[in-house]
């Protein structure tokens, strides 16, 4: 597999800030992979995300998307149609009064012939499971449904990568589950590269790779199981590990040998039971 997004020693500083928000990030994201980025507020994870589709460009260093330099303004549209972005607040990214009109917004901007837009919109809505509600007004939908519409709006652009910047922060638990399962399906079934920015560890468990950010730097990188097993380092970064991981970790320190990355409560209980017997 080849890298679809590449960061080369990227530094970034907001003009009004004294400290750098990104201090020397070097990173390659493989095509077709599911990457989660974890970090507490102000760790620079949103800034990192905004570099992936040229909303922000590096102060120094280089970001390459599918081989294109994001600082090249002539290729801006090519970068943006390769990397779609979903934001935290679904209300502020839906532009139309009808679900299907909103999903059609990006293909319309790209100047795609109208018949093809219809196909793309229908397909995108089916992927996120919102096809039945295509005639609805977005403000009457639940948070999870709105966020799925926003995801459909990005899929209709047919990007290679979809970056989600804390897409579940404003949702209830059910909405969160809807969004995470939709995103996981996009990666596993449609082969789309997914970058999920979050501060919920539970949401990272399905990822191939987990990056941890703190103060503008990458502090950890590995599979979720590898990263979770470093419980103390996580807690030093101000990240609460899931309760089940914490329990397994504490028990392991007292001589148990439990799998560390079990998130399901009953699965965790089964593991402990097995261990005791």
């Amino acid at each position: 597999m080849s890298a679809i997004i590449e960061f080369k020693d990227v530094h970034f500083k907001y003009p009004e800030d004294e400290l750098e928000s990104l201090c020397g990030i070097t990173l390659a994201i493989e095509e077709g992979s599911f990457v989660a980025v974890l970090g507490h507020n102000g760790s620079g994870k949103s800034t990192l995300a905004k570099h992936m589709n040229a909303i922000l460009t590096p102060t120094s260093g280089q970001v390459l998307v599918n081989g294109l330099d994001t600082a090249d303004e002539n290729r801006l549209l090519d970068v943006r149609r390769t990397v779609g972005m979903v934001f935290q607040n679904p209300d502020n990214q839906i532009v139309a009064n009808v679900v299907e009109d909103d999903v059609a917004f990006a293909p319309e901007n790209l100047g795609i012939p109208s018949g093809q837009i219809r196909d793309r919109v229908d397909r995108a809505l089916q992927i996120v499971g919102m096809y039945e509600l295509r005639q609805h007004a977005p403000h009457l939908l639940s948070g999870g449904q709105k966020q799925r519409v926003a995801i459909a709006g990005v899929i209709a652009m047919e990007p290679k990568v979809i970056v989600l910047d804390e897409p579940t922060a404003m949702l209830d638990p059910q909405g969160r589950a809807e969004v995470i399962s939709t995103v996981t399906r996009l990666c596993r079934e449609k082969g789309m590269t997914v970058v999920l920015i979050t501060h919920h560890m539970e949401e990272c468990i399905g990822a191939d790779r987990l990056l941890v950010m703190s103060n503008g730097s990458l502090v950890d990188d590995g599979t979720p199981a590898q990263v979770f097993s470093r419980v103390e380092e996580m807690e030093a970064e101000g990240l609460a590990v899931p309760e089940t991981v914490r329990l397994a970790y504490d028990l392991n320190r007292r001589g148990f040998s439990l799998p560390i990355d079990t998130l399901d409560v009953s699965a965790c209980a089964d593991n402990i039971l097995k261990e005791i017997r």
Partner: protein
Amino acid sequence: MLKDITLGQYFPGDSLIHKLDPRTKLIAVVLYIVALFQAKGWIGYGAVTLATLILMAISHISFGNIFKGLKPMLFIIVLTALLNIFYTTGTPVVEGWIITWEGIDRAVKMILRIVLLITGTFLLTYTTSPMALTDGLELLLNPLKKLHVPVHEMTIMMSMALRFIPTLIEETDKIMSAQKARGADFETGSLIQRAKALLPILVPLFVSAFRRADELAVAMESRCYHGGEGRTRMKQLHLAGRDYAALVVSALFLAGIIVLRHFGL
């Protein structure tokens, strides 16, 4: 209370009026308004009223919905009627009264005019989705692009404004509840006091509206929005036979009203 606002509301439906091209409806509404202001005598007003009732019947819009929209205008309607009744000179209804037959005649016509004006425009917004409406407006105003009028920008602003009305209403409700929970009082006191009480609602509302606008702009750019140039449409508008028929009927209707006016009817 805020949820009752019917501004820009759309009732989906399947009637002939719903199916007309938005451009046809926009032109027809303009012709309708001109006709309304050309009506002079009772026959003219009767014709416009009858046409409005027929349009309401075809579009399956109930009286209830029209009344709901008229409610905020009630004060203006009553005031106009009273002024016309009391300030028109002519033959008094009863010897020595200030109320004249001419005054009553004029007041009723004014009420009719305002009510029909609002009803006509409601028939447009009730039967046309805001997106279709702005698309239609953009196409109609397209020739102005040659004069460097930013038509696309104006219509996209209009559709964004319509899109965010329900969101901002919801937000206002939330802010009002939050301020009430902390003891704010919006219902009592003098007019000035009540106006002052609105300030703690307006400030957070505007701050949040600007924040939303900022996020929306970034989200739109992320979805490759780069102005009207090279944009296509999923739902392309095209004029069908029924549109031409509707336009011809509207034009003939206006001509008829003008002829009636000529004869003082």
